[in-house]
């Protein structure tokens, strides 16, 4: 029962070659990617592609004949399911059954997918469009969510997809409409395809060149700064459930991104934290966020912005105006520490780190964006100063896994001694303790529990800190061959915080992983021992500087995760249990020159520009707010401030400008680094006004920044437009509105013309003109009412059609009109009367004999109008 062919064998071959093969190539690539992405043990993408191809070819063959899709596919599903039952029924032996059923299911699923695609290409017209458009959309989403923000990579990934999309749309319709009788069918197709591909390539290459700068802007803006930022909630192991948890700060962890550029500087920091000798710099890990909550449902760690006692200070630095400060001292009380604490400060100069991101050692509470010295502006894009309450006990040296370094062990031992004296956790608030020791139950977790208990027992540890050390040492153990049991590995699995089952696999079987694995496993072990802990993410600090003490360089591969353990009174202390990477030693980076330490801005004054004297170099402003010695003051009422601007640099958003650019009314920020102010420290009882009175007049000013209003900013930043996505809904509505108006005008056209003709008839001065317009108006009205003239003469029309149907006296009117038109003789009084009787009355007469619905529907018919005005043609 072979059904007749719908199209010839030639066309079938063309379909397979032109639609099938490119799709197969794409499918193969997608399968390969998916296999890698899902970290399947065996990457059988070739086999899967073959199954897919099989299904597709079968469908091509089948549907080149007149078979129906649904019944045949239902039968096919039935057969597939039946065979599946047989295969898995275990008649072949239990193991074989499992093996074969997995194989069979794979084949069935991929084959069936191929079948559907094959059907779509050969029969369903909408399929090729839907398929290619959605594939393009999906690809755009995938590319946009990729962790690599590199213009080249994006373009290379996106352009072929773009080509494929339009190629499929073009080719499927081309094949559909080809004349199969053509003996030169293949040549025709080849010719057209070649032409098409050349055009496509030209357009795509041109467009990509055109868009390249915009891609580069994005690359610069976001690129290296947050190389590992993972924004796709589906890919992330952390869940974004909208209940306040967020993945946005999911910082990269080393090993997270194999391609992390080791030479790429993220930022440079000057950390004002020294050992008691005052000379030896004491490096600290830089924190960005905490993973504190474990979601047992998804088995993943989460960043939880609702965590109790949240001591994370995480402002959007880019939103704080230059030199103004933002602080939140509430985090200090939430950090719950009072021993061995002091305030330290840090200056961070960002190279490719995102302008918005804030990172600083633990318990930061203050941020102040500062200007980058001119000499370094081409290297560093922004900078800020931060203050934090640091623990004397904390130190990168303390955190580093000593891995056998004796000096380091000694140093750490001293600190452990201090921590051993900490009180027990009985004093800690219950909800805090419960939250930070929360750990689910289950086989996997219980095995971790018993492991940690065993470790502690073997080490004989009693105090919390000893338990922590025992766990750290567990990771450093060596086997009988002297080889370390745990190894560092840039596991190419899914990036991010590992899930629980991965952690058990890591702890008990694999014993290879990167920092996130060590941190996660440690966290579980500590929590199972009842020690409050959390995973901190941020940057590992390496002291490489001998020339510039206190300066630290941060490279991309320093993104890191470690554990913070809470000790009553001492607060959160960093611990790093990650084993050193045996294969890849950190090559010390050659030091670069640090940015010139910027001067301290003693006075930052904000207000409106009043006047400027460019000769005397004196200017005045209405002082509204000021920052004096980092203390904010509000000037009430506002006071005029005379400024000595002889040394001042005037800055605009676009760069340095001359003093002439200052105009009265400008909103300005005046900054002074002058020692005059350094010698005038504010006293506690000083108010804004009392300080102002102490200021010298004119006050020495070093920098004046002209602040832009929001509109000016918008005008200056064209790229702002790129970032705001077009509101397509609005565009669609506008198009709809315009289309509606056009339609309205179009359909009201007949009526407008009718009114216009009548207006002309009423307003014409000359009698022959008047009769002409009357004639036109009448004819138009009748035409519009569907009383067709066809090939009749006006007289015939009037007599045989109109007068007969409506009982009007059009014939006599037309007669008079024609007389007037051709004889040029004026109408007699009698005749004039006849026309006057006829003209306005005709509309009422005709109208009264027609139904309203009929009249409306006919008046709306623009085709009639067009016919009325178009001259009859031989072709009509």
């Amino acid at each position, binding site marked *: 029962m072979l*059904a*007749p062919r719908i199209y010839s064998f030639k066309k079938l071959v063309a379909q397979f070659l032109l639609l099938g093969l490119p799709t197969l190539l794409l499918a193969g690539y997608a399968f390969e990617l998916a296999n890698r992405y899902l970290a399947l043990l065996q990457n059988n993408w070739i086999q899967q592609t073959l199954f897919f191809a099989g299904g597709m070819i079968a469908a091509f063959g089948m549907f080149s004949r*007149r078979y129906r899709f649904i019944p045949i596919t239902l039968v096919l599903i039935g057969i597939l399911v039946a065979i599946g039952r047989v295969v898995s029924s275990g008649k072949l032996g239990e193991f074989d059954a499992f093996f074969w059923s997995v194989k069979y299911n794979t084949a069935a699923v991929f084959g069936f997918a191929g079948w559907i695609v094959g059907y779509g290409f050969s029969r369903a017209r909408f399929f090729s469009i839907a398929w290619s458009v*959605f594939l393009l959309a999906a690809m755009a989403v995938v590319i946009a969510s990729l962790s690599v923000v590199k213009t080249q990579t994006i373009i290379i990934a996106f352009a072929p997809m773009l080509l494929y999309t339009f190629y499929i749309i073009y080719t499927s*319709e081309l094949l559909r*409409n080809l004349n199969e009788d053509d003996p030169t069918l293949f040549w025709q197709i080849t010719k057209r395809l070649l032409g098409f591909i050349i055009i496509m390539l030209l357009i795509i290459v041109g467009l990509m060149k055109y868009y390249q700068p915009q*891609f580069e802007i994005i690359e610069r803006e976001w690129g290296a700064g947050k190389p590992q*930022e993972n924004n796709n909630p589906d890919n992330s192991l952390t869940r974004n459930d909208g209940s306040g948890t967020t993945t946005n700060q999911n910082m990269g962890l080393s090993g997270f991104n194999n391609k992390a550029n080791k030479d790429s500087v993220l930022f440079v920091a000057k950390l004002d934290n020294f050992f008691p000798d005052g000379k030896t710099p004491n490096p600290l890990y830089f924190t960005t966020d905490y993973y504190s909550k474990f979601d047992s449902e998804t088995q993943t760690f989460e960043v939880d912005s609702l965590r109790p006692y949240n001591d994370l200070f995480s402002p959007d630095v880019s939103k704080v105006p230059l030199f103004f400060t933002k602080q939140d001292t509430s985090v200090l009380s939430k950090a719950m520490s009072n021993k061995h604490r002091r305030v330290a400060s840090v200056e961070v100069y960002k190279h490719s780190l995102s302008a918005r991101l804030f990172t600083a050692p633990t318990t930061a509470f203050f941020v102040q964006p500062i200007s980058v010295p001119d000499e370094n502006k081409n290297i560093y894009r922004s900078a800020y100063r931060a203050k934090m309450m640091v623990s004397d006990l904390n130190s990168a040296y303390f955190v580093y896994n000593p891995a056998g370094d004796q000096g380091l062990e000694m140093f750490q031992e001293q600190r452990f001694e201090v921590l051993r004296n900490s009180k027990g956790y009985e004093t800690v608030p219950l909800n805090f303790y419960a939250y930070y020791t929360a750990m689910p139950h289950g086989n996997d977790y219980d095995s971790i529990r018993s492991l940690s208990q065993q470790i502690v027992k073997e080490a004989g540890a009693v105090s919390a800190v000893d338990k922590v050390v025992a766990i750290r040492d567990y990771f450093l153990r060596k086997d009988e061959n002297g080889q370390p049991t745990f190894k560092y590995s840039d596991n190419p699995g899914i990036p991010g915080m590992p899930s629980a089952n991965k952690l058990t696999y890591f702890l008990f079987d694999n014993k290879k992983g990167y920092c996130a694995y060590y941190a996660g496993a440690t966290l579980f072990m500590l929590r199972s021992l009842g020690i409050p802990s959390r995973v901190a993410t941020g940057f590992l600090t390496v002291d490489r500087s001998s020339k510039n003490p206190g300066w630290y360089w941060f490279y991309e591969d320093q993104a890191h995760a470690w554990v913070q353990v809470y000790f009553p009174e001492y607060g959160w202390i960093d611990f790093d249990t990650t084993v050193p990477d045996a294969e890849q030693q950190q090559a010390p980076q050659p030091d670069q020159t640090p940015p010139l330490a910027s001067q301290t801005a003693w006075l930052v004054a904000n207000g409106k520009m009043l006047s400027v004297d460019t000769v005397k170099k004196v200017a005045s402003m209405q002082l509204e707010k000021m920052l004096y010695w980092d203390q904010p003051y509000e000037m009430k009422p506002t006071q005029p401030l005379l400024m000595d601007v002889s040394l001042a640099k005037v800055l605009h958003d676009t760069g340095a400008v001359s003093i002439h650019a200052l105009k009265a009314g400008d909103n300005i920020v005046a900054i002074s680094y002058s020692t005059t102010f350094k010698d005038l420290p504010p006293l506690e009882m000083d108010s804004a006004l009392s300080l102002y009175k102490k200021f010298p007049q004119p006050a020495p000013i070093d920098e004046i920044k002209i602040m832009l209003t929001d509109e000016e900013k918008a005008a200056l930043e064209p790229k702002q437009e790129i*970032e705001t996505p077009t509101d397509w809904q609005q565009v669609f509505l506008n198009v709809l509105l315009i289309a509606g108006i056009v339609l309205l005008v179009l359909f009201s056209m007949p009526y407008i013309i009718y009114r216009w003709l009548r207006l002309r008839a009423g307003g014409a001065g000359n009698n022959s003109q008047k009769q002409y317009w009357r004639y036109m108006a009448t004819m138009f009205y009748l035409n519009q009412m569907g009383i067709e003239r066809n090939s009749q003469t006006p007289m015939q029309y009037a007599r045989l059609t109109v007068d007969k149907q409506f009982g009007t006296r059009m014939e006599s009117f037309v007669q008079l009109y024609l007389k007037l038109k051709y004889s040029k003789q004026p109408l007699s009084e009698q005749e004039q009367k006849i026309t006057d009787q006829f003209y306005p009355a005709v509309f009422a007469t005709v109208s009264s004999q027609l139904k309203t619905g009929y009249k409306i529907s006919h008046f709306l018919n623009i085709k009639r109008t067009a016919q009325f005005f178009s001259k009859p043609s031989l*072709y009509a």
Partner: protein
Amino acid sequence: MNKSTWRQRLSYISLFIPVRLYFLLFLAAAALALWWIRRQQPVEPNVTGDLLTLLVKAGFATAFLLFGLSILSVLVPFLWFTYKTKTRQVTVNIDNAEEASSRKIGRRINMDIEPLLKPFFGFLYFRFIYDDVKLSPKFSLIQKKGNVRWFSARQSGWYHWPLPAIREYDVQELVVYFEDLFQFFSFSMRLPVKQSFFTKPKSLVAKQQPISPQRTEEENVRIEELKRIEGEYLNYKNFEDNDDVRRIVWKIYARNKELVVRIPETMDPFASHIYMYASFFDSLHMPDNYLVNTRGLDYFKNACWTVYAQLVKDGRMVKFVTDQPIPNRHFSQVGEQVEYALAASNWHSKADLLSIVPPKGHALVCISSISAATQVEQLLQRQQQKTTVVMVSLSRGLKRNMIGNWIRWIFVQPGSDFEKQGFTEIRRYSTIRKMKSNEQLIWDILKKHGVPVVTLS
């Protein structure tokens, strides 16, 4: 029968709309995809959002550029052609359609249009409007070998028009479509053309029974051979001035000195002709039964043609008499005349069987399952007539194996409208049954009278 399907109606509307359904599909898909992408777009500004926006922009820019380019490349030749049409400079030649290769059903149409430029990045398609409302499939011309010219303002080539039904087609208009690269837009131009042609009936296999000639007929053929005829000078006349001297019968002159010439023989007094009557009379009133009007009608025409062709092949002289007015056309061959008469015939309910077959003499009568049984009976009862009947069972022309068809219909789509099987016409099923019972009735009558019946396998 002239009811147009929704597809045809859509095609007709599309003559006036420059946008094709494919484009609307694309727009819908793009809108959906955009909606989906916007849902994927994160709320907070970040790299994914920015990149996505830019990628979407790039995608749309590509689409707009491509569409713009392709529309432009189509609009130019279209406007040029419109101008040429309006100024009446376009000539269209449609070749009197020659029979296509025997394997395929339908006709091969040769066409020639000048001046007409092919869009550089686009396609040219054509369509005929025939029989007032019907539209041919959209087709492209296949250039003849050796006729391929680049950048020519003349388009010529052929197209095989699959026309399954055997009837006359009257082409009234040619629609020229200018379509862009993606075939999203289609600008059409209508040109009046005048061409009619018909598809010919095909011979079926006939179990031919010997049909004897049943009529004598005057034949205007001069007897070339001299016959020796004895007796009176019945066949001679006196010589007149304009007579050919060579025709003088010198034997008679020798005998009695009279100049006589032989009268050319104009009578051919032997039973030479078969009069064949095809009755398209529809006694069951099934003018809107789709099956009977397509497959059934064609089967009847083929059957009549088969009998006719077979008789002619056997050296008989057959006069085909149709029962309805046929447009007057001139054909050089009698066979073609009959082919045309059959093609142009249709079921009707005007002249019934008895009115077309004269009451005397012999006749070969083609009847069908929808002929009136009573009239067949009356015809056979005529005393002065000897009738041979060709009974065409229309149910054979339809599909026989109904159960098999049902199963087949589930799995196999009917091809064109023409090939539609009974299942889509389920409400007509009772009329088909009526037809079958009538058919059986006629067979019984034929058996009862024992008339010679020609059957077709």
